[in-house]
């Protein structure tokens, strides 16, 4: 866990005036979470992070790591216990990949065999073949591969805390996306507490369990990604996250969020059509899903078919062509709906039982409702 208490950094400008680069920042990053410091350049986010491993000495305030005040720890042992991914990757071009990764373990006095095993283990974590790459120099690898090495170098000594300064800025968008996904998977497995500096709202949304938006040395809003997008604290945050912020939320809100916000209404095969019509009429629905005794969907009936008909739902059953699962984000859901020219689809749980439905109307009303994404975030696939 990282705690910042009343952290300040004052610089003296050329004209002799003091300048508060970081102004009374308070922030808690719970263990195992990723907190993104987001803001324009010069907002104090990088300075804040560099005060954690004291690359910059704080003017006042406290930094606590797992409850311990870091002011009492000498900088060298402090830094060896905090992984740091530097801007522009920062690999040492004069050392092989193995030497690069093993700098900290060697300083910590690990023996040769343990270093070698650790290097191989780290390489396999980022899917790079140790036999092929460990003895290469950084220049002999692609940008994306170097970026991965930068991340595992920071993880080499298994420090519980990881600081990352625009860690994925030096690679092209396609590689970045993939490395972000790999990183997220790795972080979920290892449970590291991560603080990451970024100026990219999409990166923040993707990686941050929590986003702290900085402006002029202060945190103006600190919340989950969906809350920042749904309820920006002020005009600055709103414009920084972009005026298409509601569309960005599609990635964050899952089909299950929308389905949970609606009453679960179903019929069974022997439900009279008149009764089904009544249900649809009461709830202003155009379709009603028909399920079996186990709750698994069998098909659906249309409101206009049920309206003037006798008989039961089984007589007018239409097949269901496409379904969603609760973990799918709304972007994927909407894409499927447009692809199949549909306006709704049922949401099924892992056992295939009906769990509600998503429709264009439901999505719009959820995004409008002031509710935010509240489900556990899944690791990327």
């Amino acid at each position, binding site marked *: 866990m990282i705690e910042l208490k009343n952290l300040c950094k004052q610089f003296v400008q050329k004209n002799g005036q003091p300048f508060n680069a970081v102004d009374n920042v308070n922030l808690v990053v719970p263990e195992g979470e990723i907190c993104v410091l987001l803001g324009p350049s010069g907002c104090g986010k990088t300075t804040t992070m560099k005060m954690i491993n004291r690359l910059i000495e704080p003017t006042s305030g406290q930094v606590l790591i797992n409850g311990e005040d870091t002011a009492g720890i000498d900088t060298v042992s402090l830094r060896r216990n905090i992984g*740091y991914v530097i801007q522009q990757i920062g690999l040492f071009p*004069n050392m092989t990949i193995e030497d690069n990764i093993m700098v900290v373990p060697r300083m910590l006095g690990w023996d040769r065999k343990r270093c070698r095993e650790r290097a191989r283990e780290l390489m396999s974590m980022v899917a790079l073949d140790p036999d092929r790459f460990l003895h290469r120099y950084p220049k*002999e690898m692609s940008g994306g591969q170097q970026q991965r090495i930068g991340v595992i170098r920071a993880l080499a000594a298994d420090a519980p805390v990881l600081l990352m300064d625009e860690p994925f800025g030096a690679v092209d968008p396609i590689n970045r996306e993939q490395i972000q996904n790999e990183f997220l998977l790795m972080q979920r497995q290892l449970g590291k507490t991560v603080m990451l500096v970024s100026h990219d709202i999409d990166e923040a949304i993707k990686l941050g369990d929590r986003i702290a938006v900085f402006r002029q040395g202060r945190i103006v809003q600190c919340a989950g990604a969906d809350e920042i997008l749904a309820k920006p604290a002020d005009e600055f945050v709103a414009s920084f996250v972009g005026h298409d912020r509601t569309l960005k939320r599609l990635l964050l809100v899952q089909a299950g969020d929308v389905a949970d916000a609606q009453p679960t209404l179903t019929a069974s095969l022997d439900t009279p059509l008149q009764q089904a019509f009544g249900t649809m009429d009461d709830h202003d629905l155009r379709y009603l899903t028909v399920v079996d005794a186990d709750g698994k969907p069998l098909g659906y009936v249309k409101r206009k078919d049920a309206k003037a008909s006798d008989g039961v739902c089984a007589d007018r059953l239409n097949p269901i062509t496409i379904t969603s699962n609760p973990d799918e984000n709304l972007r994927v859901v909407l894409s499927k709906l447009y692809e199949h020219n549909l306006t709704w689809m049922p949401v099924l749980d892992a056992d295939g039982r009906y769990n509600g439905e998503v429709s264009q109307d439901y999505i719009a009303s959820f995004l409008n409702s002031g509710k935010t994404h509240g489900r556990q975030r899944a690791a990327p696939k």
Partner: protein
Amino acid sequence: MDSWIELLHTAWPFLIRGAGYTVFFALIAMVLGLALGFAVALVRIARVPVLAQAAAVYVSAMRGTPLLVQIFVIYYGLPSVGIEFEPVTAGILALTLNVAAYLSESMRGAIAGVSRNQWLAGYSLGLNWWQTMRHVIAPQALRLAVPSLSNSLISLIKDTSLVSVITVTELMLATKEVIAQTFQPLPLYLAAAAIYWVLSALFERVQRAVEKKLELAHRH
């Protein structure tokens, strides 16, 4: 022409012995000069108070005065204040002090030429100043510095001829002594020039080998 060949045949042992001294001076001054030059560069890069200023004055003085004058001051001047050196010691001292000043400037420039980001990367991994210098900065700086270090070191090989003025029988003085007996300056000076050239060319080979080795990490 035949007389030249005969002459060189007679002079050969003297010239070779002189060249041996030249190589001896050059190698010792190179090793000591590189060490002193690195120390001076470090002191200035780390901005060690007092020492850094002293180093700057030293570099300026050594680069700003002729080597010949420096040799005279050390061998003929210092005895008057009670500091006396053997000719060989005085020669090594003068050459070392002189070349170290030039080498230190090449190293300082190369160290400053390594990206700030590399220092930050070293510090962020928990390396201290010296460890970062030793493992990260210096190896990269060396690669940048090799061409200009080689310049100074090749000059050093030729500058050893100046210690002939303090009665050290290196290649230059050996040549003069042979000329004094044979009165044949042209073939003998040409022979001496050829030997200096061969020594410098051999050093260039060393330079290329070092460059090739350091280039390993930068093939792409």
